[in-house]
């Protein structure tokens, strides 16, 4: 989805939210939605998401009936669960995939899912489906480049089989922002180093897009080493990647995504028949910086929140059209 549309949606969402909140006050007596959270794992990550969502719901003073169903139970007993739910909220890839497969009629709000895992063919046709994505908007990531490294940085990108789908969008956004982009395709592991080597000569910065083939924990180090040797910083896609050695990354915490999910649920509670965001990128984000790497690149003194503010400001300036093809 292009940045413009997104911005609009964001605005719409916010507006709707406010209106909803106004309306919701008196309309609290509306039937509570039966919401089933289905985390992919019972780890603090997913529980944090659920907690944040519930908190957001609480803050919104709506009281849908929420319950948490683990994936195994869902797989086992999908029909009854579905029957008892007005809305299924799978959290994570596995739960989403399981829900998509096994649910029939209930609305789904998937959250904490990467865009790549939402395949078009899997989308349900007859019911509402919404998602809160994990991926940061491409524009945001490119803006990071700009604010961090300045203009006219050549951007390289290794695209694996999964991230390949974003190639054209990336190209578009880069063009809009005036950043030259070079992309190399990596079909298999053996092709990785050659692709990287191709990029390294023609890039000033490597933008990492999540792809299991390219930026897994095995390869990332070597990629980082290779890029470091060429003094090419890498911008990651998560705090982990920054910790691993990427210079910086924009990311959203599970709490932020959970909160966003909660808001959507609250809205839905107020307006049960309202639309679900098809694939909303995370609204809140932060910037992670690897101080050591920054210092190595001579970029001392950079500050994550400041960069985040800058990016937010720039984002707001970008028109939807500029960001949406």
């Amino acid at each position, binding site marked *: 989805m292009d940045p413009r549309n997104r911005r609009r949606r964001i605005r719409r969402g916010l507006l709707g939210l406010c209106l909803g909140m106004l309306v919701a006050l008196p309309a609290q007596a509306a039937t509570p939605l039966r919401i089933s959270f289905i985390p992919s794992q019972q780890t603090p990550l997913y529980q944090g998401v659920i907690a944040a969502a519930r908190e957001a719901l609480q803050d919104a003073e709506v009281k849908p009936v929420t319950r948490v169903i683990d994936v195994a139970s869902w797989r086992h007993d999908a029909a009854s669960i579905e029957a008892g739910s007005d809305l299924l909220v799978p959290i994570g890839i596995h739960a989403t995939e399981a829900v998509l497969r096994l649910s029939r009629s209930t609305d789904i709000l998937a959250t904490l899912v990467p865009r790549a895992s939402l395949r078009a063919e899997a989308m349900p046709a007859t019911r509402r489906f919404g998602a809160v994505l994990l991926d940061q908007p491409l524009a945001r990531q490119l803006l990071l480049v700009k604010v961090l490294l300045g203009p006219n940085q050549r951007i390289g990108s290794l695209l694996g089989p999964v991230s390949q789908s974003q190639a054209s969008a990336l190209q578009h956004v880069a063009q809009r922002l005036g950043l030259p982009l070079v992309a190399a395709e990596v079909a298999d592991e053996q092709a990785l*180093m050659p692709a990287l080597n191709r990029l390294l000569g023609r890039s000033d910065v490597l933008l990492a897009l999540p792809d299991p083939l390219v*930026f897994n924990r095995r390869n*990332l180090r070597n990629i980082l080493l290779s890029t470091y040797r060429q003094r090419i910083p890498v911008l990651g896609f*998560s705090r*982990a*990647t920054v910790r691993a050695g990427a210079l910086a990354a924009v990311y959203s915490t*599970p709490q932020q995504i959970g909160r966003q999910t909660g808001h959507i649920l609250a809205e839905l509670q107020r307006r049960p028949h309202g639309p679900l965001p098809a694939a909303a990128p995370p609204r809140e984000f932060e910037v992670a910086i690897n101080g050591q790497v920054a210092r190595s690149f001579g970029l001392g003194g950079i500050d994550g929140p400041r960069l985040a503010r800058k990016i937010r400001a720039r984002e707001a300036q970008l028109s939807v059209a500029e960001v949406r093809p």
Partner: protein
Amino acid sequence: MIRLGLTGRILLLALAPVVGIALVLSTYFIHNQLRSLDHTLNDRGETLARHLAGASEYGVFSGNREILQALARSTLNEDDVVAVTITDRLGAPLVQLPPQATPPAPLDAQVRVFSQPIEPQTLPPLNEEAPFFDEPAASPEPLGWVVVTLSLDRLAAAKNAQITNSVLITLFGLLLTLFLAARLSRRLTRPLSQLHRAAEAIQHGDLTVEVKPQSTGELRTLEEAFRSMAASLRSRRDDLQRQIDQATAGLRESLDLVEKQNRALGEARQQALAASRTKSTFLANMSHELRTPLNGILGFTRLLHKTRLDTEQKDYVETIERSADELLHLLNDILDLSRVEAGKLSLQRRACNLREVVDEALTLLAPGAFAKGLELVDLFYRDVPEAVITDPDRVRQILLNLVGNAIKFSPSGTIAVRSMLEEEDAQEVLLRVTVSDQGVGIPPAAQARLFQSFEQLDDASTRLQTGAGLGLAICKSLVHLLGGEIGVESEAGQGATFWFTLPCRKVAAGTQSPLRLAGQRALVCEANDLSGLALSHVLEGAGCQVDRCQAAEMLLPRLRQATGVDIIAIGLQVRDTATLDAVAAALAQRPAGSTARVLLLVDSVEPQTLAHLRRRLGYPCLPKPVRRREILAALDAPAGEPAAVNQAAPTPTETNAGRADTDLSGYRILVAEDNPINARLLDLELGRLGASIRLVGNGQEAVATVAAGGIDLVLMDVQMPILNGIDASRAIRAAETDGHRLPIIGLTASLLASEQNACLGAGIDTLLSKPVETNGLARLIRELCGRAPARSSHASSTRPKLDRRPLKAMLLAEMPTVEQTMREAEAAGDWTRLGEITHRFLGGVSYCDVPPLRDALRELYGAIKQGHEENLGPLLTQVYAEMDSLQRQSAEARQASA
């Protein structure tokens, strides 16, 4: 198991654990060190490989060989690294240092290979907070391999050094320990050794050993205790030794004294024995010298007695005869005793009739007994075997002695000789003979001394008879020689019973005298109880049934009663005239038809008395004591006839002659004697006894005469010319064929035992020494001939013409010839012939009163016989001198009487 001394043991104790521990520890530590070195190397290798693998990851991942080369080179610079290889996942080497080095086989002992896979280092999971995707599973394949090869040289060197050092240290430590242990142990072992040596010394008796205290603590206590113990032992031993010495001092003195005394006693004993032997030998030798002239006296006195003598002369001659007889008896006793004591008496055992021996002894002594009015009883018990093997002469001698003593010492009463069987077995009998008298008896105190020589009953009251006291000593010696015992039972005034035992061998074939009076009944009338018993025994022994009465008054009634009495035997005492009358009366009144034979036994040997009684009583009288043979002979005559069997019928002139036991009538005797004097004597004597004599002068003629036959007995002089008695006897024996053994009696003047043995060995039955006693000879002849002599008297005796010249004249006539022959033999050195001549001459000289010549001849003969040839010269000279002197003397005498 090796025995170790104290030092050894202490050292072993000290060192063994140390050594053990040292070895164990050193082994352990060496092993550990080696292992640790190994581990160190392994660790280094693995570390190097690991680090290299880690460092190589990027290079391998990115294909950057320069990075890898640099890494490999830096690794290669490490100690011990000899090769480094980095390969990709397919094993193709990306880097190889040193180049072209083939990766060594892992089994190469000089190197050790460490390989590590190059695993990609993974970051922490990236999708913790942002689960964009599931992390792909880790590829099992490593990116590549790192091979680091380390050399083991340094390791080996280090190991060797380690081992060497450890061993050296251990050895050094052990040596030090050994040294210290030895040093320290000596502190213990030296004092202990000292104590040990001291203990051994004390054990072996050496109490002077010193123990020097040289240690501390318990050992010192031990040492001091040892010292004091040794000291106390020493002092105690010394005390004890002193006491012993004191105690034994006196003892030793006594022992010395006793030893000296013993030695002296021993010497004295030897001397006494030697003296006794000398004395006995002397006596034995001398007695013979004494007997010879005595026999001459006796012989010729007897001859004189047979000549016409008036009463006075006869009286004198009888006195001389009695005296000479006594002297002879005394000398015989002395000779026998001395011979026994000198051990020269030898027994001549032969089969004999014991009853006869006893009878003869009693018969001989009967006159003496009857003269004193004593009754002599001969009780020969029936179970005693008559035929035994013993020396009858000795037995007779003993009996003569004992009975003679009994007669001597009994004024009145009965003297009984009992012969009893004491024990009997298959081969031997033990007989017991007792001589009991009713005389004065012998007090017990005196009995012990009885049998010693020269012992008389010194008590004056008992000294009724004189005697030299030799008889009992001789009896004792003879009894012992015969193998028996002798003793006496007596009380003073109660008579005495002398007894002796006689072990004899039985004669093989026990001849039972037939019961010649079997089935006959006899009446015995005898006042003397014992005599009656003896007579009854004899008759019962012959098979009679005997009836006894003692009083003569009973005789007649008995005679009248007794029908079927076959034998009437009456014992009479000459002095008991009352009994005589009674018996005479009884006999006169005997029933006419009585066919009983009557036997009268009288206590007298006087022929006149016997004849008188015979006339008076009408029946033959036999002298007591009862002799079975006489009685049986007397009863042999057909019943009813007064048997005139009185073989002892006396002739007036012959008193001694005609006695049964010396009667030689009918005996044909050959006398082989070369000495005419001896020959004449024998001829006279034996002829007087009734024998018919043939004389030969040498052995050769003797053999021829015997061969011609008609000879009952030979008297063989041993020393004869041509053929001596020994060889002649041998020849005669050799010629004997039909088992009939001709009795040969040897006559010799020599007492040499060697000659006696030679004679007996040649076949001579018995040997008599000249001069011979005629009666004894006669008895011997009778005994040896054993059978009744042939009645036919071959009186064709070729008596040589008797030379009646006086003996001395004969001798002198002979002398020149003899001297000549002697000189010839001497010159020729023919000692044998010289001996013959000397012996022959000696025989004749013995009867002539020429002691000097006789002595010289005897000495000469002895020297010749003993082979002392070197002495012969002077002896011959002496003989010649004596002959000369004798001839001169006789010539002077003839001149004087002419």
